[in-house]
Structure formats: structure tokens, C-alpha cells
């Protein structure tokens, strides 16, 4: 069964360092997302990406964050100058939604990348 894969599963970094979290969405999906979940808190939307550009971003997704689709398969989240409060589980997700058309409801999540900022 196709799945969304994320690497690394866990990354520990020093405050101020840059991290890149990688995701390989399901191959025929067109819509990509990043969500994060701080320990004990709810899953929060960060950004959605369609047709090689950001569709929507939340207030959390400030200039510290960026996303990229460097090739036909990978989808990355870059966090510059990490802060302690960036420690969270970061989930990549994809869906086969076509913009403006019927959403199937199946947002497929990866297993997550746990980021720990020390």
C-alpha cells in the first residue's frame, strides 16, 4: 500500500541550528502539507503546497520556515535558526485532492519526524 515516508524519524539539534525535514508523498498525490504536534498538544496546520507553490500557511509558518519540492518526489520543510519551542513532532501529509474539486477525505500522514531542540 502506498505511504508517505518521512526522514529522519528523530533529530536532535542545538538551538540556532538549521534543520531540514524530508518527506516523500504518495506518488500520484498533488497536495502536500506539513503539520506539527507539540508534545501533549493538538495537531496544528503549518502549510499546504500545490503546483510548486504555497497554497496556504498558518501564523506559525513565519520567515523561519520554508518548504520546497526540490525534485519530483521529495517535499522538504526547512527550519532556520531553531528555537526551543520548535521541538515537536512534524507530520507530512498528502492528498489526491485536485484544487477546487471534491476532497476524498483521505489525508495520508507520514509517521512523523520528532525534532528536539536543545
Amino acid at each position: 500500500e502506498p505511504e508517505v515516508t518521512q526522514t529522519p524519524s528523530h533529530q536532535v539539534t542545538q538551538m540556532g541550528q538549521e534543520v531540514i525535514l524530508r518527506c516523500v508523498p504518495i506518488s500520484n498525490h498533488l497536495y502536500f502539507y506539513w503539520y506539527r504536534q507539540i508534545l501533549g498538544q493538538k495537531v496544528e496546520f503549518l502549510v499546504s503546497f500545490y503546483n510548486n507553490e504555497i497554497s496556504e500557511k498558518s501564523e506559525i509558518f513565519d520567515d523561519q520556515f520554508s518548504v520546497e519540492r526540490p525534485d519530483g518526489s521529495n517535499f522538504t520543510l526547512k527550519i532556520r535558526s531553531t528555537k526551543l519551542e520548535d521541538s515537536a513532532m512534524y507530520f507530512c501529509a498528502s492528498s489526491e485532492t485536485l484544487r477546487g474539486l471534491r476532497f476524498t477525505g483521505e489525508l495520508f500522514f507520514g509517521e512523523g519526524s520528532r525534532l528536539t531542540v536543545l
Partner: protein
Amino acid sequence: EDKVVQSPLSLVVHEGDTVTLNCSYEVTNFRSLLWYKQEKKAPTFLFMLTSSGIEKKSGRLSSILDKKELFSILNITATQTGDSAIYLCAVLISNFGNEKLTFGTGTRLTIIP
């Protein structure tokens, strides 16, 4: 601000019991409401509800949406230890074709053998 509120936050029951999980919402540009199960890491899709009053069923799980009162319930009958998980409610919001999910805090369900 869009809000999705789940209750209870935590629930502990014995195997075989029936549970009802609640989700209420206040959002603009509502499109659908979705339920996910989160066991260890990734949320897995359970149901998507778009119309009021139509029950969705999958085995022992069922869910229904009330768009007038702005809530949904998720029922699990004859619970098993494998049902222990966090159940997430999320509302799909659509702005000019851009879609995003807004999640509730989840209900942590623990089934005691």
C-alpha cells in the same frame, strides 16, 4: 478564529463498553468533518462527514454530523483493547479552493481488559 473542541479529553472504560466521543466546531467556510485515530505516531483516517444526519459506519465504529448544532459524535461499540488511542476530530476548511484541516485536541481513549 476557527475552533474545534473535543470532549472528553480523556476516557477510561472496560473492554466491551460502548463509548461516545464528541466534537463541536465553530469555523468559517466549513466543508467537511473528519475523524482520525492516532495510536503511536501518524493519524489514520476513519471517516469524513459532509452532510447532516447521515451515519457513517465501519465495523464497530460509527459517526454522525449535525451541521445545525455544529457537532459530531463518534461511537465505538463493544470496545476492545486495540481501540485504545487518541481520537482526533478535524474540520476541513476551504478558502478559495485552498483546503486545510483544523484539529481538535483529541480524546485519549483507554480500554482496560
